[in-house]
């Protein structure tokens, strides 16, 4: 048997908190070893718990909630537009070995996730508990009762860019933690303890962020795409315009002319775009109005400071505050 196999099978134990846990851990390790020997190293990761996250923010959240030994594969980076991604064989392989798929939902990944799951043919994550959509755990904004083409690229299940409201993130964390504990029952106690720890730190961080961001209340911003409603609603910022006249529709000259007036006359604080978006439209508007264009990380990995969910909110608020002269 190749040495790689025995190394992987021995990697299971974390520091157990009491003897009951340790017994369980040992029994679990034996059981895993038996299952492992049975399939004779055909699939080196089969015994571990594998999570496939569509976006970095959910990968980061799983990382906060789960023991270190689980594998987390993240399909996209902060520099990609998650509405569209290029197909790579490794994505199918990762979904195939996943025990849980965690995505934003509300049709954000509708262009590729259904094909990816169909192609992977993994019944564990095709539906049921192995398929976790963050947007299903909270109420979404901008939900439309009647889908009208004329309204632009609106998602009938509401705006899917939910990760920039810390209260929704907390609600999603609770639901996700319950799901992880259900699927990876051997580590249920670890998940419970990790959630308690995360909740304490997160609630303290929310207090800090809200105190810092008080100066932003009532300020006005222009956005590139309608991906900031949860942030602006949380901080009491007013969105006075968008470069895209309707979500996903490129601007016309008449729209841009009125946007210049609105941006100037209403004294917008900044023109906001995500790290992955084309800088040209926001720069164009900034040049004509004197209002600064501001690149916000939008998700984990979007800038040097946003290395986890805490850093994401720290960086977003710092950058918005930096625009106040």
């Amino acid at each position: 048997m190749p040495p790689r196999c025995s190394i992987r099978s021995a990697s299971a134990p974390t520091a157990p908190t009491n003897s009951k846990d340790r017994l369980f851990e040992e029994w679990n390790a034996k059981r895993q070893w038996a299952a492992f020997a049975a399939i004779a190293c055909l699939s080196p990761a089969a015994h571990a718990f594998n999570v496939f996250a569509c976006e970095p923010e959910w990968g980061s959240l799983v990382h906060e909630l789960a023991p270190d030994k689980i594998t987390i594969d993240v399909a996209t980076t902060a520099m990609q537009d998650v509405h569209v991604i290029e197909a790579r064989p490794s994505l199918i392989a990762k979904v195939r070995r996943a025990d849980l798929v965690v995505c934003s939902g509300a049709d954000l990944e509708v262009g590729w996730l259904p094909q990816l799951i169909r192609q992977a043919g993994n019944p564990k994550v095709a539906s049921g508990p192995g398929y976790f959509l963050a947007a299903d755990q909270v109420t979404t904004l901008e939900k439309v009762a009647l889908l009208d083409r004329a309204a632009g690229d609106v998602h009938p299940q509401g705006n899917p860019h939910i990760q920039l409201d810390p209260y929704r993130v907390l609600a999603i964390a609770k639901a996700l933690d319950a799901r992880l504990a259900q699927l990876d029952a051997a580590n249920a106690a670890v998940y419970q303890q990790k959630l308690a720890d995360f909740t304490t730190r997160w609630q303290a961080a929310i207090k800090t962020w809200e105190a810092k961001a008080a100066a932003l209340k009532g300020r006005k911003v222009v956005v590139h795409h309608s991906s900031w409603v949860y942030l602006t609603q949380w901080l009491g910022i007013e969105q006075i315009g968008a470069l895209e006249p309707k979500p996903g529709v490129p601007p016309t000259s008449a729209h841009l002319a009125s946007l210049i007036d609105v941006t100037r006359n209403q004294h917008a604080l900044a023109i906001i775009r995500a790290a992955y978006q084309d800088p040209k439209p926001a720069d164009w508007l900034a040049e004509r109005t004197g209002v600064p264009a501001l690149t916000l990380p939008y998700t984990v990995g979007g800038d040097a400071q946003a290395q986890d969910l805490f850093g994401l909110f720290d960086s977003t608020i710092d950058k918005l505050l930096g625009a106040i002269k």
Partner: protein
Amino acid sequence: MNLEGLDPTILGPACIAGVLVLSTHVPLGQQVLARGIIFIDLAIAQIAALGVLVAMYFGIDEHGASVQFAAAAAALLGAALLTWTERRWPDQQEPLIGTLFVLAATGALLLLANNPHGGEHLKELLIGQILWVSLGQLIPVAILSAVLLTLMVLLRARLSGLIFYGVFALAITASVQLVGVYLVFASLIMPALATIGLSGRKRTIVAYTVGVLGYVIGLALSAVLDLPSGALIVWTLAGCGIAARLVFASEARPEPALEPATDSLHRT
């Protein structure tokens, strides 16, 4: 390095899709090259996409078979138009094809000005992704390819005018949705270009070999290097084409650069 993607059940359907696309595109590509109308595939694909958008504009269901009929009907109309322009202005066919391409592409943008959901369908029609291909999707394409190949073999001496453009339109409409515009262009032009000095059965065999090797190596490399499959296959097809040119360089030299159109499918 990433060996877990090297799974035949992941790469298999993509490989079959590649072979099906090559089956019709290798002989068609030789015709396209001989006629000097390189960008006709882009024009036909755009016209097919435009047809779908027009059909949606008039309220047809955006899913299911009706979309395919709209795409095929538009592509055939475009083919008929190109047949007519070829007869009317034979020496202006290439610039007319280019003009038709930009008109169809920008026509789609104008139709989509207020309809971003149509944009998703436009993308689906133009940027098929080879890895998302399912076996169920391949069955109708296999039947269509068999019919078109039979037609091409039976009519090889008379594969001109309306029949050529019609066969071409149907083949492109099907393949673009499977593998996307870039791969369709590469499958059409590169094997034909690589074998331009050869002729007859030998040319056909070498061209198919270049195509199949390009797809297989490209798919395997995209798994190992964790890169997008479609884009990488375009590069491996080019690599295999250059290799074929080098291997057969001595045989190719005495031949004329371009053969007449009617000879390109002629087998010895």
